């Protein structure tokens, strides 16, 4: 167990290290750099000024040196300076994390309270009209682009209320904040709820076919009791895994949703930073996302180990 943990940690570190190289190299392949953007914003292309800016930002130094500087700083908790705002990158990134984190948690909450119960119902009523319609709805959840769903919600809001919720930075109290984030969270969460529902359903069906459920039933346990006490508890194990993984992958959905709803979270910031070729911001944000994904994967494995005693890690 101990050595397994050590190995997992080493693998995580290796993955993140590889990601740091990958993102660093890919960013340097992007046509144009921040100096081009800044010069372009001023409507000129003065080579001298461009060179001056490039030098000031250290873009003229060898790639390896730039990489060493970034990783060196990162290991000391120094994220470097944002190119556009010329402020420490941490000051730009940190305030945006809680916004996206809240949105993710709310989306996750939403997807669980929708996905699990409907998945169970769908399984218990397998092949009924209810099952079919729930399956179609969940499939549509996987098919609607979340930005389009967001736009439809906005359009509906305009149509019925004549206005839309515009995110403000200082929500007046908890309720207003929840109110502002609820709709975007539901839009992002819809997709995950569809996934969770499908998984809950198939997992439930699998478990219900198992011998011990038949045994329980033959011993005279009521249907409801069997479904909810025995089957559900066991069926939820793989669902927990997917919930964990979705938590990390919701970030993908956040990118478009934060853009549609104008929410100043990390995901929209990533798109904006890519557009501005603001390497320090993009690099650190990508590392942050990769870190979250890798950590969540690790936690899910751990949870699996704890929840399912059948799994043993020998080496």
């Amino acid at each position: 167990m101990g050595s397994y943990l050590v190995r997992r940690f080493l693998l995580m570190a290796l993955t993140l290290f590889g990601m740091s190289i990958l993102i660093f190299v890919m960013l340097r392949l992007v046509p144009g750099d921040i100096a081009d953007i800044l010069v372009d914003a001023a409507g000129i292309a003065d080579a001298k000024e461009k060179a001056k800016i490039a030098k000031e930002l250290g873009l003229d130094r060898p790639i390896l040196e730039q990489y060493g500087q970034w990783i060196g700083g990162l290991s000391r908790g120094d994220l470097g300076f944002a190119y556009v705002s010329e402020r420490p990158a941490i000051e730009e990134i940190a305030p945006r994390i809680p916004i996206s984190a809240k949105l993710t948690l709310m989306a996750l909450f939403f997807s669980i309270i929708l996905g699990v119960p409907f998945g169970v119902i769908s399984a218990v009523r397998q092949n009924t009209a209810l099952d079919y319609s729930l399956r179609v709805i969940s499939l549509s959840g996987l098919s609607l682009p979340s930005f389009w769903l967001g736009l439809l919600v906005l359009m509906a809001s305009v149509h019925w209320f004549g206005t839309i919720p515009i995110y403000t930075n200082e929500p007046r109290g908890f309720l207003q904040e929840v109110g502002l984030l609820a709709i975007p969270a539901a839009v992002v969460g819809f997709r995950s709820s569809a996934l969770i529902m499908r998984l809950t359903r198939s997992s439930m069906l699998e478990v219900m076919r198992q011998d011990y459920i038949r045994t329980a039933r033959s011993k005279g346990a009521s249907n409801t009791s069997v479904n909810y006490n025995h089957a559900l508890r066991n069926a939820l194990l793989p669902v927990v895994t997917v919930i964990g993984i979705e938590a990390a992958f919701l970030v993908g959905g956040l990118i478009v949703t934060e853009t549609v709803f104008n929410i100043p979270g990390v995901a929209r910031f990533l798109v904006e930073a890519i557009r501005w070729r603001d390497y320090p911001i993009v690099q650190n944000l990508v590392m942050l996302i990769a870190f979250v994904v890798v950590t969540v994967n690790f936690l899910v494995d751990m949870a699996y180990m704890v929840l399912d005693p059948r799994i043993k890690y020998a080496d």
Partner: protein
Amino acid sequence: MRSRVAFAAGTLAAFVLAAAPAFAQKQGGTLKISHRDNPPSASIHEEATISVVQPFMAAFNNLVMFDPNEKINSPDKIVPDLAESWSWSPDQTKLTFKLRSGVKWHDGKPFSAKDVKCTWDALIGQEEKSELIRKNPRKVWYSNLKDVTVGSDTEVTFVLGRPQPSFLSMLAAGYSPVYACHANGRDMRSKPIGTGPFKVVDFKRNESIKLVRNPDYWKKGRPYLDAIDWKIVPNRSTRTLGFVAGEFDMTFDSDVTFPMLKDVKAQKPDAVCEARPTNVNANILINRDAPPFDKPEVRRALVLAIDQKPFNDILFEGHALYGAAMLPPPAGFWGMPKEMLETLPGFGTDIAKNRAEARAIMEKLGYTKDKPLKIKVATRNIAIYRDPAVILIDQLKAINIDAELDPIDTTVWYNKIQRKDYSVGMNLTGGGVDDPDTAFYENFHSSSDRNYTAYKNPEVDALIEKQSAELDRDKRKKIVWEIEKKLAEDGARPVINHNVANTCWTPQLKGLVLQQNSIYNGWRFEDVWLDR
């Protein structure tokens, strides 16, 4: 007086209201405005976009400014700002300003003539080590400025190489604020200090800009507002909705297109909306160094193929203005009269005849309907560039040119054009001041850095210099028109039209005067107040 005539009938009412004597102004309130994108920085001298000027002009003062209560920026209507008065030397090469005393920067340090010198030294590259700016997009404005000398704390003199009547107009532009000697570039780009009516307290990238009233402002009783809150909302629909729903008191400058105007008016009937030129004209770049457009007749055919009206009808519902290189009158101060304009190539009304002539040229060169000339139309990958390019491509079909859109990432656009790596391009040209010196030197003089098409015509160069030094206004206008004519005949950036767009605000917002011939001036916000 002609310059007083508002250019569109609909704006006349707004004009009268705005010009009426202001009484019973109310103090206080926060003005909320939507912003279209993230300003590249807060440093006006380093940038060339309304995204910077509109929010940050209120933090600064100029030496002089175009009269903020006049609709038309005119060289005859320049009023004092930080300078109390000014005078020209008899040979018209030295401009001396007498400065206001007792003015303080936002950090409490006193303002003096040294700050003026620091600012313009940095702009003419006098001070090599200057940390004030790192980019200088309007260097060409000051190519005639030789030196800035400080007489006393309240006296400063600009020494010019030759007489240049436009010089004062440039100093009066919103693009010409006075910076503090003791400031550094990084602060000016993120949280600038000025002497203006509002202090910048926060500039959150992609989110918001907050300005608050400067209690120590030198102009007594100003400003009226307590604060100005800008919120950055990149999606135009969301911005417009925010305005309609009352989240914002005002739209971003020129943010309401004509197709959207009807909707805004329907949803918010009390909205005050004013249309005016955006100081931007759509024009075509033709690479005359590479085949097939190295042949003058092919260039001519291209110009003849253009029907300006559909561009105007589609993009501006017919509200755009037709003009040559300068913004046309009555909104523009310098443009040539309409009768003259109609004699220029591409401005005729018989499109069918023009196109027949163009087709004949093309067919003579072997380009037929079945064997068309294949070209790419390069443009920046931004909607305001792409939209006219799409229409151009559609129109070129009529003269056997099969064009494909080549959207260029905005970061490499200028590089590509400078390398002459294009054949036809759709371009937008904007100007900071309605002034022939800025327009011609920037875009058409062979010595200019910003003449990125490398247009070179010694005759035009000579005329540009001649008009620049001409002190007689009427004589100067005639030379300006001659230049416009030459440029049009030469196919140097054939102009399709001058863009017009709307800016809207709530009727509770009072005291705002939009300038008809420059969107970059008039954003000091010191006379603006909220009636609630």
